[in-house]
């Protein structure tokens, strides 16, 4: 299982990176990817209730299942326009 993980805006600052790969057993859904990243970057924890989740460029739920090769993104509420 290999998941490409992207972080944007304040979440990238908290993660200390804009991109990483998560390769681990026990990764089944989007929130388990977030849990894995939070273990490595505890500053992410404070974003748990506000983070927006995306799976392969579409909004996702915490329980959305992930598969090998998927791209998951974590970011704050959007502020474009």
């Amino acid at each position, binding site marked *: 299982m290999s998941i490409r993980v*992207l972080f*944007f*805006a*304040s979440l990238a*600052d908290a993660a200390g990176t804009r991109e990483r790969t998560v390769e681990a057993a026990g990764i089944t859904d989007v929130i388990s990817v977030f849990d894995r990243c939070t273990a490595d970057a505890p500053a992410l924890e404070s974003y748990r209730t*506000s983070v*927006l989740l*995306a799976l392969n*460029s*579409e*909004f996702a739920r915490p329980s959305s299942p992930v598969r090998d090769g998927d791209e998951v*993104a974590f*970011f*704050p*509420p*959007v*502020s*474009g*326009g």
Partner: protein
Amino acid sequence: MFSLTREPIDTARISRSLQQPEDGALVVFEGIVRNHARDKAVRYLEYEAYESMALKKLEEVGTTARSRFDIRDIAIVHRLGHMEIGEASTVIVVASAHRGAAFEACRFAIDTIKEIVPIWKKEFYTDGEVWIEGAR
């Protein structure tokens, strides 16, 4: 036409390329970098995007606008990177036979961009910088 760009947006060129003889109304919206926010003086802004998803979502906004309002076409361009005060970060152009639908579709488009398109603004002040988070 939906796009992301790192160059200044040429609003007049977008309007000219969208407009057709059957159009009776062309509504143009420019989102402009403002020199103040939350009682602080803003020096400049930077925008970043999850580009592949942002482009997909801009197209979704445009497609929904076309199906929901009686318009002929819509163009949306969002700029990314560094922007000075007074520059346009977003340009929306709506073309339709009549003005009512064009105004409504344009308002819908900018409001929806601010809800679902993964783009973020960072404000730079004289004494620091802050990522702005939208309302959920």
